[in-house]
């Protein structure tokens, strides 16, 4: 299941990342912002993506930006919300 989520998340990240930066070059736990792949604006689009695709309501769960800046952080959040 995590693999399916990963593929979906990576496909989405490719649509919002900065051009000319290979997503695959960054480890799953690395910060995408610190690695220069996305800017802080992209966080908004990640939030919108998670709301639409996974029905996560951040008004209920709270929003921790640092959770959403790495692929592993996003996947952990998806799995956590799926279990809740």
């Amino acid at each position: 299941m995590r693999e399916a989520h990963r593929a979906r998340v990576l496909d989405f990240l490719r649509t919002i990342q900065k051009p000319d930066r290979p997503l695959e070059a960054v480890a799953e736990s690395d910060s995408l912002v610190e690695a220069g792949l996305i800017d802080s604006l992209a966080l908004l689009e990640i939030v919108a993506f998670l709301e639409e695709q996974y029905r996560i309501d951040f008004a209920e769960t709270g929003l921790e930006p640092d959770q959403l800046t790495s692929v592993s952080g996003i996947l952990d959040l998806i799995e956590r919300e799926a279990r809740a």
Partner: protein
Amino acid sequence: MAVALLVRRFGQLHEDPALIARWRSWLGPLLTWLTPRRRRSLLALGALYIAVRQPLREMFPGVDLRAPGGPVAGAIVVVGCFAAVVSVYVAAGRFASLPAAIRSRPQVWLHAAFWALVAIAWLVPDDRGPGAAALAGLVLALPFLLWRMGYLLMSGQRGRVAGSRFGDHLLYLYPAYGGTNTPYGKGLDHLARHEAASEEALARSQLAGIKLLILAAIYNGLLALMAGLVYGDPRGAWSGHGLGLPRLEQMLPAAGTPWATAWVSLYVALVWDVLKLAARGHEIVGILRLFGFNVFRNTYKPLLAPSIVEFWNRYYYYFKELLVEFFFFPTYVRRFRRSPRLRIFAATLAAAGFGNLYYHLLQHDAFVLTLRWAAIGSWLLSRGFYCLLLSVGIYLSMRREQTRRGTAAAPSVPVLTQVRRVVGVWTFFALLSIWADDSAAGFGQRVSFFLALFGVR
């Protein structure tokens, strides 16, 4: 060429393996001894000193400690601030058991408690001795702690305070490394995420800190030169040869500054403000890095930013983060979810507009002590206008940046276009500063000055 190489090497100081190895060999046993726990303990000890000094410093000039009852009032303020911090720590540690109304809006409740105290202080007559003086002192001293306690509460909301050491939170609540009302390095969650866990990481962090401290010294030198040579400030270097360029607070009340002089003054003031903020921020973050917290610097080349939002992100990073975490994201996740553009605009207005204005209102001692709106009417109008313009500028810039992203490779941007973008950003913030200036100039005077820049008198 040699200078460029030197600059590049200096910039990569903390990444140089040979230098890291040498640093480790010089400091060897000290680096081993400085475990994360010991580093935090040292900062916590420093925090105890700040816990006494900071509230007393914030009390002036609103409360005269030399007055009868002054030292008693001072002691009450120090203890009162500490009690507030302990209370928030306890509440954060038991966050899950707080009433639902508080759990859903913890920051609102924190600030409501502060304003309740402000109202009480306002109601108590001034001639009520140490008690009245202490209340006044508390309302002046607490804003320094408010946003820090906010980060503590936020950490509690995420379940990270229960079981944590109070001393670990003290280090950012009363930062021995310095700071303004804006918590540099944010709270413990952020600091811990960037904390050096190994000797090598500590060495790297310390070298990065030394680099920032050197940069701070260079910037302070440049500021002294500018003060003397550009502004003719007697406290600056070589002021006898100064150009005597007027500052904004000198130009605003007096009409008739030559057009070119006014424009030059605005641009130079922008450079001055950036250097000043960078110098102070580098000192604070530099010290943090010496203690192994390798956090982002507060200011990172904003004068090279190609967009307004990028400048905003680089100029005063921790203030921007404060507005984002306490205002932008809470608004973004709750309002206008079906309308993406309105959602971003509302959140931007909440942060760069309302949050920005509110933050500065808290620092306005005269208002916080007296609650007299008339006393701050002119300031409020100008600052409010500034915040509105800033919000609109950031929003439009964000929209433009969003359309530039994607998977397609970006064509290389011609140099002239890059320069044009940077000049555009400089111009925006230089003009915006007309309304951010804290001089006594009225709104009308600022508008007249602005229009005169474009030949309209």
